[in-house]
């Protein structure tokens, strides 16, 4: 048995557990990759929240940690519900057509096959406030379009649109969920005289909760790791990482900057551990509360 498991054990120890333990150790050190790590206790964690004394001086710590946390929460709280609602609505539309069903489904799934980096580059072009087609179109309607990626208020909404465009994977999941709802449930509730909203509220939605739950957890984890779109769009506008005005400075982006631009490996490791703990805690809370609202058709609950 051990023999069969050994490739997995080897991989786990060398590529997962080992590096994790090492990064936990680094999070208590000052480490720039070249000199050997120097033990500094909890100073990296204190630097994060700005309660620290360095060289006898009080140090306000990392001024952008809070910004990065707030941006990350924003993209989850605003972006994720929109994604779920949009995916369910699109999936429901996709159950409708009688002819060319596969064509439509392929069409909606296609964007999620585009690589994130390429898609982000295209969106920066589309949303260019002067040369981009979106503002040119708005201009024809007499609307003075926003500055999008050049304005801290509109940069994140532009990324939300990008997220909604590439939602094909979630649509496929919801479509599968919708097609699995037994017809007789709809027939039964129709006999009782339910309208469209009641059919959705009492049949479709409960039957979809396992899929919603799944996309919620995956969405939150993705949100915590939000990186590619933000990094690419901020750097291609010519403003630099996190710009405009740090509105696209997400947690993972800032972690990456600390690690690979400033070589504060110890601090980056501490940030990674806080991210890990936050993800675990949030997932645990969701799992615990899921019993109250997630309905498994198999009748186990």
């Amino acid at each position, binding site marked *: 048995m051990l023999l069969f498991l050994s490739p997995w054990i080897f991989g786990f120890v060398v590529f997962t557990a080992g590096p994790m333990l090492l990064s936990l150790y680094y999070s208590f050190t*000052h480490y*720039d*990759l*070249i*000199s050997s790590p120097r033990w*500094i206790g909890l*100073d*990296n964690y*204190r*630097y994060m929240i700005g309660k*620290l004394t*360095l*060289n006898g*001086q009080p*140090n*306000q*710590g*990392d*001024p*952008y940690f809070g910004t990065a946390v707030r941006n990350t929460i924003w993209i989850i709280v605003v972006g994720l519900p929109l994604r779920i609602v949009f995916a369910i609505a699109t999936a429901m539309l996709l159950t409708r057509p009688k002819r060319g069903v596969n064509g439509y489904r392929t069409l909606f799934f296609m964007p999620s096959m585009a690589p994130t980096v390429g898609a982000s580059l295209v969106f920066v072009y589309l949303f*260019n*406030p*002067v*040369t981009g087609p979106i503002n040119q179109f708005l201009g024809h309607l007499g609307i003075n379009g926003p*500055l999008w990626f*050049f*304005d*801290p208020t509109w940069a994140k909404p532009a990324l939300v649109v990008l997220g909604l465009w590439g939602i094909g994977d979630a649509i496929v999941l919801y479509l599968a969920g919708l097609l699995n709802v037994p017809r007789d449930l709809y027939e039964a509730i129709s006999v009782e005289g339910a309208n469209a909203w009641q059919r959705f509220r009492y049949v479709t939605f409960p039957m979809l909760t396992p899929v919603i739950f799944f996309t919620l957890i995956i969405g939150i984890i993705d949100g915590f790791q939000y990186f590619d779109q933000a990094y690419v769009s901020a*750097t*291609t*506008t*010519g*403003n*630099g990482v996190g*710009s*405009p*005005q*740090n509105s696209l400075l997400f947690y993972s982006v800032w972690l990456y900057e600390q690690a*690979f*631009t*400033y*070589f*504060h490996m*110890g*601090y980056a490791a501490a940030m990674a551990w806080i991210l890990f703990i936050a993800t675990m805690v949030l997932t645990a809370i969701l799992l615990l509360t899921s019993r109250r609202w997630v309905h498994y058709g198999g009748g186990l609950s």
Partner: protein
Amino acid sequence: MRRTRLLALSSLAMLVVAAGCGGGSSSSSSSGGPATTLDKTPVTIVLWDMWSGREAQPFKDALKRFQVKYPWITIKEEVQPNPPNDTFDPNLVNAINGGNPPDVAMPFGPDYVGQWCAGGLWQDLAPYMKADGMTINDFAPAAITYTNVGGKQCALPSLTDAFGLYYNKDMFAKAGIAGPPKTMDELMADAKKLTVRNPDGTIKVAGFVPLNQWEELGPGDLANAWDAKWFDSSGKPQLATDPGWAAAFMWQRQLIDWYGYDNIVKFFAANTNNEFNPSNAFENGKVAMMFDGEWRTAFIKGDKHPPLNYGTAPFPAASDHPEMYGPARVGGTIVGIPKGAKHPDQAWLLVKFLASDTTYLVQMANSVGNVPTTPASQSSPELSLPPQFDTFLHVWANPKSAFAPPTTPSGNGYANHLDNFEDAWQSGKISDADLHSQLATLDQQISNDLAQGAGP
């Protein structure tokens, strides 16, 4: 079948040769300093550089002279990708940790020199220089500001960038302006005079774009006109206390307000990412004046665009700081020996060549249009550069020119705080009344950051 056997044989032979090389080099480098006699055993050294695109071939050609001078040394050139900071040091760190660094490293920018010099990424070149009778004073005074940290000579300059004002002569003539602005007040007045607006108020042609993100212009470059310094003599940040900074920010705000922030951002957005391609705004007459590096002269010559009648001059200085008409930000390609280099003695020969060989420097200056870094190469009759280039030779030689933001043992990542401040300031998020208190906060952030470099 035969092929595979041959391959196996040849790889065995290579292994033997490699083993021989390894043995030879370790004995020569074990002394820990320069070898006293020239070891002429054939050897291959690895060079990391970033010369790509139109600059790749000229570099290869200029390097041939080294092979003629030192026929027993073969150079294996490995061109590194060009990331945003013009440095491949992150890869270099990995290569050193992996035990396989190049013998000579030649990044385009010194941004990481400070951070890595103290940390030991670069070997100290002082013993080699002493043995060969060289000092850093053989270069211009600015050289020391980006190659030497705390007395340790981590690299040498090998061609450099120098910055100044480019202006479109035809537009000047049309607007009735006699010559380039010499003061910041004149720059402001000329910028307004040269600007052409569309009927809706947006900008068709900008006189001068004062945005922090605009191509090469940084907040420090404007403040330099007031001789503003980042740190006081004890090394404490002084953006709030040195009045030059506030003066520069107010100057900038005045011009941005005149354009209208939305208008100038739209102009920036329409020209984003055009700095290094033939659609460049200045090259195509969309901007009348700009702050830029000497390389633009070569770009203007090489790029396809309508003929451009342009001049260069030192960047204007504040009227109460006439001494600042002349000096500017400088700094560019450096060359050094990374920690763990397998053939440091031979590497030094290449470093010395790249930093001080007059023919090499002149040849490269002529072909890629960078500033030659030694007095001999600057005054060489072989130098065939356009007349507009003279400005940059003088900027490099000016004793008040320096690399910026200043190199510190904690690196210069602290400059990021100023960029963030600038973004907020330009957009009007910070009011005139709050400028001083926000600059004090900025000083505090920079102090914190430098302490983090030394601390957590």
